[in-house]
């Protein structure tokens, strides 16, 4: 099988740079596996290791520092038939650490070849995430205050299903790479090598020292038994295939004619847990069923189980422009928290504004038409007060009527919930 190396673009590394050996190791691995060029994508990022994509006649994707694994993920998910190989230096490893961890956890079938040469070669030999504390590098004393990371043990604990560490100068490199590429799942091969242009100028690193390091750090290469699990892409596709129902948009038909359709601005002031938003959406469905245009804005806390819950609803025979509430026609005051959130509006309400206030709720001074209701006397639980208030509106034919409300509840709830809702609403309708 012919070489995959691009004859027109031979490697341009410093003499003695281990990257050159890894380039031919990768080429040999591809040849040994008998891969087709169009089924290989080499994904690289920045630094001397980022030149790899240019040396091969395969698909190539060269991107931003440390992000190679993110492109590789998109490529592999989009085209599972590709052999996706990422080359990354110890620089990319440091800056893209989150992506390495995520790739280990995902177990997508990608091969990550880390070219660890203990420093940033291209930018002048600064310390990286793998530089020993006692090394002499281009960062003055900074590396002395940190310790290097052992990416193989990190990868293992992050869930990588295949991890190996070897010398980039090892004759067995191609074989190591073949095993990693053939592994179905995320595989990490950390190669240790010499940056002759920078690192080995001031640090005693020889092939023999690298061999000793490999021996000492003792990562038994290959399949990590305890991490074995299905490959991400296959598992994803299996799970996704089970999702067959496309969610169609909520469509509401016009069924009712209102004698005098009028713009309504409805504010529901309540608290988390009172199903304020659901009640608001019921008003909207009811409105659409009578040919109105509707909009609803909700205001609730980021911590959804606590605090105010406020819905602002517009019903309008005309298309709705500005979606804010200017002069409410209806205010449902169902909790002190909700009222506190909009206390300024009470002073602005007109005498025709209908305010329904629950007995336990205090509201500021207002000239609006206020009615009080004691939901507790109806034995209606707090979580149903908003719904029950809609019953009051329907009974008084303010903004909605009984048919509209029944339709809205029926069309949005399943039978059981609908029956319960109607029970609640009936309590106030009979009142």
């Amino acid at each position, binding site marked *: 099988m012919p070489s995959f190396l691009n004859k027109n673009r031979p490697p341009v590394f410093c003499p003695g740079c281990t990257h050159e050996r890894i380039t031919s190791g990768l080429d040999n691995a591809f040849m040994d596996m008998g891969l087709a060029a169009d089924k290989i994508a080499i994904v690289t990022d920045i630094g001397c290791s980022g030149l790899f*994509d240019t040396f091969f006649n395969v698909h190539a994707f060269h991107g*931003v520092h440390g992000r190679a694994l993110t492109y590789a*993920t998109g490529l592999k998910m989009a085209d599972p038939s590709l052999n996706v190989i990422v080359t990354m230096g110890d620089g990319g490893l440091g800056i893209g650490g989150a992506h390495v961890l995520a790739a280990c956890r995902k177990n997508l079938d990608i091969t990550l070849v880390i070219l660890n040469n203990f420093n940033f070669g291209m930018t002048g030999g600064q310390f990286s995430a793998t530089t020993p504390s006692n090394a002499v590098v281009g960062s003055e004393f900074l590396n002395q205050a940190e310790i290097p990371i052992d990416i193989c043990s990190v990868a293992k604990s992050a869930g990588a299903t295949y991890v190996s560490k070897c010398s980039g100068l090892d004759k067995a490199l191609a074989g190591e790479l073949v095993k990693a590429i053939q592994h179905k799942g995320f595989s990490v091969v950390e190669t240790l090598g010499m940056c002759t242009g920078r690192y080995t100028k001031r640090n005693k690193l020889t092939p023999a020292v690298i061999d000793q390091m490999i021996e000492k750090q003792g990562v038994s290469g290959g399949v990590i038994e305890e991490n074995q699990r299905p490959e991400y892409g296959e598992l994803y596709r299996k799970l*996704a295939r089970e999702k067959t129902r496309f969610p169609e948009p909520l469509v509401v038909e016009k069924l009712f004619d209102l004698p005098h359709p009028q713009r309504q601005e409805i504010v529901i002031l309540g608290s988390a847990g009172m199903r304020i938003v659901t009640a608001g959406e019921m008003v909207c469905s009811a409105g659409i069923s009578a040919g109105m245009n509707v909009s609803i804005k909700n205001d609730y806390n980021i911590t959804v189980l606590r605090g105010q819950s406020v819905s602002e609803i517009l019903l309008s025979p005309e298309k709705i422009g500005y979606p804010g509430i*200017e002069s409410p026609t209806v205010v449902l005051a169902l909790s002190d928290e909700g009222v506190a959130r909009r206390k300024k509006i009470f002073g602005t309400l007109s005498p025709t504004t209908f305010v329904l206030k629950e007995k336990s709720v205090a509201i500021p001074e207002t000239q609006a038409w206020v009615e009080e209701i004691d939901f507790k006397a109806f034995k209606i639980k707090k979580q149903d007060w908003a719904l029950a208030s809609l019953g009051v509106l329907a009974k008084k034919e303010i903004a909605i009527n009984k048919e509209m409300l029944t339709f809205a509840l029926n069309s949005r709830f399943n039978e059981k919930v609908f029956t319960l809702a109607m029970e609640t609403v009936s309590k106030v309708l009979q009142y």
Partner: protein
Amino acid sequence: MTLVFMEGNEAVARGAIAAGCNFFAGYPITPATTIFNNMLKMLPPKDGICLQGEDEIASMGYCLGASMAGKKALTATSGPGISLYSEQVSFAIGSEIPLVIADVQRLGPSTGSATRGADSDIQFLRWGSTSGVPVIVLAPKDAQDCYELTVHAFNYAEEFRCPVFIASNKEIGMTKESFDMDDLDLPPLVERNLYSGDNYIPFEAAPDKAPDFLPIGGKTLVRQTSSTHGPDGYITIDPDVIAANQQRLRTKLHAARERISLYEEKIIPNTDTLVISYGITSRAVEDAANILGQEGKPVSHLSLKTLWPVSEQVLIDKAKNFKRIVVIEMNLGQYVNEIRRVLAGKQIDFYGQMNGVLISPAKIMEVIDNA
């Protein structure tokens, strides 16, 4: 009559599906999360792929990889996420990777307010990448626009091979409203031009066009690179090659500027004031203009949907007969700078508001009356 009832974010997702989007990757962030939620429901039944990245940078990276493999990709975030997207956005711009990015804006700076709206990012979207290459930014005003403009956004992304932003706003994205699906005015779908010859040069293109596309993973070998490249996709230092490519990246959008200028207008004869706005604010402007009309003090208004590239000719033509221009924005003055630049010499009054609250029609009437 039947109406659909959905929030702007759901409409973006539905627009994307209508445009043939088959890949989404995102990271949860209020107020954009429901785009992600919707795509996660909609893509699997359509054999599309929907992923959550480990962060925003990764989500963009997934999209870029998938797009280069031929997918039509969408991502969605808000201001803090756009900050993180920036390095990948630059890549997509410079290396011509089609992609649609929905920015459901919230009140900045920084993490700002997660649930308060503002048009915070209008200049950021334009200039938040290295090199200053133009981008396309579309601003919807309501849920229906979210749907329509997302389809346009995919068309532009495919045609020009570039990221296209949808500058939505919390007040649109998270507001549910009704509209009539029959009112949707959707353009015919555009797909990226696939190369059909037998000597593919990945970045070879006419001086005002995007290069033809072939996917990574296809029979023909494809190169993609974030580095300054020649047509062959390899690094170049040849000043002429660099200059030609830089120029082409601008020209491909600027040459099409008028064609991709989307806007709505209501020009009333014999009025002397033109109110220019965009996004959610333009709805309050329309209301204000209607009320002023009823009061016998009519004004005209122009609501821009394509914000970038700046529709210079549209602005010049529309403003020609007006004595006074009033610009209203939900920030303290971002796009008004473009309008001042293009309409230099005109009287241009401005009102901006950045307090997490919508600008009301009453406020706009006051500005029009007093300014």
